[in-house]
């Protein structure tokens, strides 16, 4: 057991190997830092985390080092004494901040980072009120094309080199480098080789100041208007924990949320920039039903009873000719409600798993310079481009023991052997789409085709009923990732006015009263399906729960 003394307060750090920033954090003392990042190597170059350090001698006295030392580089040992609030430590930190602002343009009013900028925050907390520099600042030109998604505001850079280390250590693609020397040092790329790897967006999050900005988000919102919600990225089965940032129910960006159980510190660009369909104008905004061969908008009051009636009728004719397709984009709770609804109509109704979009192989990072993956793997973009295949499969297994594939549904429908297909799709628009025109034509041979989806597809064009679905950002529930980690999805934005969440639609179909409440249904699910038993309390904390 090791005890570290932080500003006079004893902090027990157990047997963990920590540096002084982490150890002080355990004691509730924040040591400002720029270049240090838990996922990157230590360079100790920003000199922001300077503190006074001493060791407890065997006789109990404390011997302080004669100089300030960087906390990021100093291991916490038993008896280490850290002082962050002495005059000397505070002077060193203020001095570093004054230095950082010497060539910083202080263009906060037009800087995208203002409001969440660590240079602002630290200067406010630890810096001096005024700069004593009266000379001209060095202002290198911006580099708007440092990456397809990234712009570099060169003059704002504080040379923490986090971005450079990220491309060398995590993505392994090493596009970014430091060019020139001294105060003229700047981040750059090799000519003609922009920073376009699939993890490139992370350098924007890593940048503690407004130097690296995401073009996708640039000048869209002032960050202090944004509200942040903990959620899960729905773009692959890694299930990265994310912050969903929105303002007035418009989704503006996704940022990775640190989660050692899910993905670590980062997320890929597919997920990061793949959310725009949520704000799309093309979305299915209200239920529609086919009348005289044409889809016409309808109200929920008309559609729901009609839908219930048609489904009940089909089940009465032949329960085994009714299929519910559960897409891997449904939450576990939604899958559970839909499965329960259909199985309550008849045990013969078949439940199928919707198409599982798969693209290539799992893509692991870092890469070497030839693009070959290198061990140890630090980040994986999975080939399976959906968030919840495992969760939905477990629900299906519970209700019917086996999982029927989507291809079987298409085949049976094409042979005209089905009476009703309820496709709960909810797929995001991705190249190829979830259903091809041929598959849609085959599905359309079923007299009662219900398609619940976010955006129009070949299938929705041919359906008898079209029901709007909502995206991951608009609903609550549980996703189970490739490794069996159950993570809670929290609603970040309201769905379009006439859209009901998928879970609400299923509740209404079941004629169960009330609004959908994920924790309640999660508790029911945990009670009924043994795989989900660890979720019995109904709540999931920020890091999720490992199911096995």
């Amino acid at each position: 057991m090791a005890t570290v003394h932080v500003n006079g307060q004893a902090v027990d750090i157990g047997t963990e190997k920590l540096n002084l920033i982490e150890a002080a954090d355990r004691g509730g003392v924040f040591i400002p830092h720029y270049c240090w990042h838990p996922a990157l190597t230590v360079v100790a170059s920003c000199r922001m985390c300077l503190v006074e350090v001493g060791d407890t001698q065997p006789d109990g006295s404390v011997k302080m080092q004669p100089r300030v030392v960087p906390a990021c580089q100093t291991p916490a040992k038993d008896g280490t004494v850290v002082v962050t609030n002495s005059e000397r430590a505070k002077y060193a930190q203020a001095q570093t901040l004054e230095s950082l602002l010497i060539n910083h343009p202080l263009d906060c009013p037009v800087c995208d980072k203002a409001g969440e900028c660590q240079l602002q925050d630290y200067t406010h907390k630890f810096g001096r009120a005024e700069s004593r520099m009266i000379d001209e600042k060095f202002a290198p030109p911006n580099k708007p094309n440092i990456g397809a998604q990234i712009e570099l505001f060169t003059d704002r850079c504080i040379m923490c080199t986090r971005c450079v280390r990220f491309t060398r250590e995590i993505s392994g693609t090493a596009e970014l480098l430091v060019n020139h020397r001294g105060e003229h040092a700047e981040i750059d790329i090799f000519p003609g080789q922009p920073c376009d790897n699939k993890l490139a967006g992370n350098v924007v999050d890593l940048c503690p100041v407004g130097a690296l900005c995401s073009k996708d988000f640039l000048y869209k919102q002032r960050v202090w208007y944004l509200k942040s919600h903990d959620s899960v990225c729905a773009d692959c089965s890694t299930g990265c924990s994310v912050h969903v940032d929105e303002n007035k129910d418009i989704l503006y960006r996704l940022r990775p949320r640190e989660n050692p159980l899910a993905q670590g510190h980062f997320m890929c660009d597919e997920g990061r920039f793949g959310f725009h369909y949520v704000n799309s104008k093309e979305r299915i905004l209200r239920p529609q039903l086919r009348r005289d061969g044409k889809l016409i908008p309808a109200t929920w009051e008309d559609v729901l009873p009609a839908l219930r009636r048609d489904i009940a009728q089909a089940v009465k004719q032949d329960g085994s000719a009714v299929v519910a397709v559960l897409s891997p984009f449904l939450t576990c709770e939604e899958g559970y409600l839909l499965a329960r609804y259909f199985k309550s109509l008849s045990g013969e109704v078949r439940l199928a798993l919707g198409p599982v979009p798969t693209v290539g192989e799992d893509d692991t990072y870092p890469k070497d310079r030839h693009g070959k993956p290198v061990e140890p793997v630090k980040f994986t973009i999975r080939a399976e481009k959906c968030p919840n295949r495992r969760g939905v499969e477990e629900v299906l297994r519970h209700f019917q023991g086996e999982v029927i594939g989507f291809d079987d549904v298409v085949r049976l429908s094409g042979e005209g052997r089905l009476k009703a297909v309820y496709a709960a799709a909810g797929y995001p628009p991705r190249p190829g789409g979830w259903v091809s025109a041929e598959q849609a034509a085959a599905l359309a041979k079923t007299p009662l085709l219900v398609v619940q989806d976010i955006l129009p597809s070949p299938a929705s064009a041919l359906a008898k009923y079209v029901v709007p679905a909502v995206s991951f950002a608009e609903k609550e529930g549980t996703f189970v990732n490739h490794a069996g980690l159950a993570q809670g999805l929290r609603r970040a934005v309201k769905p379009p006015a006439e859209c009901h969440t998928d879970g609400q639609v299923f509740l209404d179909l079941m004629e169960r009263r009330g609004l959908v409440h994920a924790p309640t249904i999660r508790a029911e699910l945990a009670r009924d399906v043994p795989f989900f038993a660890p979720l019995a309390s109904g709540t999931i904390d920020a890091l999720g729960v490992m199911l096995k």
Partner: protein
Amino acid sequence: MPEYEPVLLRRVGRPNSQSIDTYRADGGYRALEKAVAQLTPEQVVDQVKASGLRGRGGAGFPTGLKWTFLPKNHPGPIYLAVNGDESEPCTFNNRVLLEEDPHQFLEGVILAAYATRAWVAYIYLRYEYGRCYRTLEKAVAEAYAQGLLGRDILGKGFHLDVHLARGAGAYICGEETGLLESLEGKRAWPRVKPPFPAVEGAFRKPTVVNNIETLACVTHIIDRGVDWFKSMGVPPDPKNPRDPGSYGPKLYNISGHVNKPGTVELPLGVTVRELIDKYGGGVWKGRKAKGAIPGGISMGIMTEAEFDTPLDFNGPGKVGCLGLGTGAVTVFDEQTSIADVLYNITRFFSHESCGQCTPCREGTGWMMKMADRIRRGDGRLEDLKILEEIGNAIGIMPGTTICGLADGAGWPVKNAIKKFRPEFESLIRAGTKSTSLQLVSAH
């Protein structure tokens, strides 16, 4: 003091002094043969340790002690990196050694490799030393041809390969870990220590980094013995328990406003005044000196009144300078404006700061801007206060940077302000513009 007979420079100027044949004719490689035949590596280390040899590169760290920091019974490889990135302004003693007598140095390299059990020696030369590189390249080839390098040297089962590496023109490559990074083909950003190079150096293997002049001294310690080496220099200061003494010969460079600039070899402890008057031919144009830089500009500035300070490892520290440094004395005469001196110094460090640590990267640039403003007659009295504050706040001594470049950048600034404050104040008050030529902008 009787006239000193040079040892390191004894062959300088002789015909064909670079060739291995003349070197051997003058008794060259005798020390190596003796060491390999009679001494174990440990005994060589002990002899160097006993001689009190201190690194000639600037910091003055005891060489023998440095060698003992290598891990014991390491399976290898162990590397020897030779620091020939002699970039301190006005310093050129390595250049003389390499251009005139490369084998004397090479013998030291082989001896050091024998003592430290290094298999490979990398000799890192600054880019500007083209002639040194070519001379050394030839010398290495000659040594290989005569079996003094390569496999099974002198039939004693000890191997050594020597590789020459050239920098790309950065001062920071003279910092030992910056040098190792550059050697590995990376940007020469000094590493955070620990681990020190003796534990994890070039290519993450134990590495000894030594200066060229240091290794040339090793040759003579083995050849002439420890007693010869200790017969000259300055014994430890009894009042300073951490002073191991300054023994042996040292090359001093004299430059600046003197009549006869050049390199002389003298026992450690000669005074600045003696160097200027006796060996440098006095201050030029019959003028008086205003001050001098005692050992490369990172060591600070001495005023004329302090010229009786002995130039050993301890002496310059007594008058507020950083240390002996490289032993390169640069004199500026009484007509030189201190504002110009300060600007020249700050400009150099601003140009050469590697850009890694914030206080140095930004501090050196800021100091240059202030020095430039003072020089242009737009200075403010508070600039002096800020300059002094930065000078005190940057470096490894206050703990704000990774390497010693910032200490060297801050030291002459605070020395200049402290020792020439009245002149600065009168320049600033009068708004005097410098009349000297504008230095070409380096960037």
